[in-house]
């Protein structure tokens, strides 16, 4: 059997969980790609705020590095750290910039077996919101299998909320019929 092609989507704050899941679940002869996407809306928001000042911007100041360049640099370092954590000889590092969800789909459009994705942050309210906008889009549109991992601890099933309509859960009843 040909080796599997695995893409791990590396996102700040949750990447460690994805890498660990990839190490744990896929055979050692898999071909790994670590993918990072810099969201263009963040650099754009920062650039645009400066443009909104009507072009004033401390002209005597030495021009600093552009937001995009800083982001590219840090993305390379993050991917390198992720590769070290993966500890696999056969790994490609891919850094992209743009609309995150679309860039991720583009990166897995061709011949990828599994995309490894982490859930997003807010674990106080599990449910649809534990997938952010970009992650939701990727899960919905990825043309391959998606492995969805918890970035930190996996919650127990007691985290499932009681039914919204109906009486409070106590005292427990075996069946709940509508009148």
């Amino acid at each position, binding site marked *: 059997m040909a080796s599997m092609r695995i893409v791990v989507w590396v*996102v*700040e704050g949750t990447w460690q969980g994805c890498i660990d899941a990839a190490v744990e679940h896929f055979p050692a002869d898999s071909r790994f790609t670590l993918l990072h996407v810099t969201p263009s809306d963040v650099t754009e928001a920062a650039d645009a705020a400066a443009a909104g000042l009507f072009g004033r911007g*401390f002209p005597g100041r030495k021009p600093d590095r552009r937001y995009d360049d800083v982001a590219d640099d840090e993305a390379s370092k993050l991917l390198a750290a992720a590769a070290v954590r993966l500890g696999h000889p056969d790994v490609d590092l891919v850094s992209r910039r743009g609309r995150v969800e679309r860039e991720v789909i583009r990166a897995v459009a061709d011949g990828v077996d599994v995309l490894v994705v982490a859930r997003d942050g807010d674990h106080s309210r599990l449910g649809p919101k534990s997938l952010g906008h970009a992650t939701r889009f990727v899960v919905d549109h990825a043309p391959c299998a998606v492995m969805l991992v918890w970035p930190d601890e996996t919650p127990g099933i007691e985290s499932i909320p009681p039914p919204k309509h109906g009486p409070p859960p106590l005292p427990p009843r075996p069946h709940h019929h509508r009148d």
Partner: protein
Amino acid sequence: MPGPVAETLAVVLLVATLGCAIVRPRGLPEAVVAVPAAGLLLVLGILPLGQAGTEARSLGPTIGFLAAVLVLANLCDHHGLFQAAGSWMAAGSRGRPVSLLALVFAAASLVTAVLSLDATVVLLTPVVFATVARLRLRAKPHVYACTHLANSASLLLPVSNLTNLLAFGASGLSFARFGATMALPWVAAIGVEWLVLRRFFAGDLVGRGDTHEVTPLPVPVFATVVVALTLAGFFVTSAFNVSPAFAALAGAVVLAVPAVASRRVSVRDVALSADVPFLAFVLALGLIVEATSLHGLGSVVAHLVPGGSGLGSLLVIAVVAAVLANVINNLPAALLLLPAVGGAGAGPVLAVLIGVNTGPNLTYVGSLATLLWRRVLMRHGQELPISEFLRLGALTVPPVLVTATVALWISLRLVG
């Protein structure tokens, strides 16, 4: 010249001035169109010389004040204040994204209040961006916090926003009274921003930052002390009826001397940071708006805003100001509205500021057709990825406007 013709010409010149200020063809300063446009209005008699003189005399001290604050903020950067702030935020957060966001809120609110929104946008935001990236956390909540607070947290002091400086003269308030009255609205606006952003970005405030490379830089004691003394100087000078611009100027000189002596900055850099072409632009823009106001637009605007300073009036004024700021950008909006409410006391003037300062978060960069649709998508030739920005604006601006205005109404009764 008949009124309608004069008005039309003045409005055309205003639009051309603002358009060129945004597009800045060949990177020329905004003043290149604004100053000749103002000159033309004077030559044609559309703006009488006497009127222009009065306007210039009232704008002059404001412009001097702005120049001094810009120089001061720039020198703080040369003294390493912003870099140090970045390292403290990184270390203080211990890599926790919510703690980091709280520290970014504190830094952006303070920098905006004391050194103006320009300092937050140009000097602090790049530091925050680099800090978050180095911690390997998601940048979005923190960068959006900076861009939002540059506007919402610019309510506190006359120096926080150019619009405040313009209103400061009109309000008849002392520096201390201005700050005392706006303290509650300032806190209210920041509080609402925190509640909304914390929830809106809950999914992105995730993980634990990598603090291995983080070492808090030493406090640039000299710069910090000078800024604190300058801030105190604003209140003291104003109490003695001296323009607080002199305090800003003194602070800038004291910071400049060692920086120039140790060759960290050249005299030319210091002079450039006063941004003289921009100051000329503000003066010319003030004259052009005065001309449009004189020939009809002023009375139209005066009809838009109610008299009185009851809660209802203040809310209407703030909303009108916010809408106008989004249509024509906040600087011209303030120039148009302030004369219309100037006679009605401090309350309406400060309500205008709540509108023109916090309103621009609604439509991305304070609009003017969204800064000419971001210079006709100059950079990428593609759609702008701003849907999230617009959603966040729609969620924050209405509650910020209402809460800050109610806070102002309360404040006027307590301090007033």
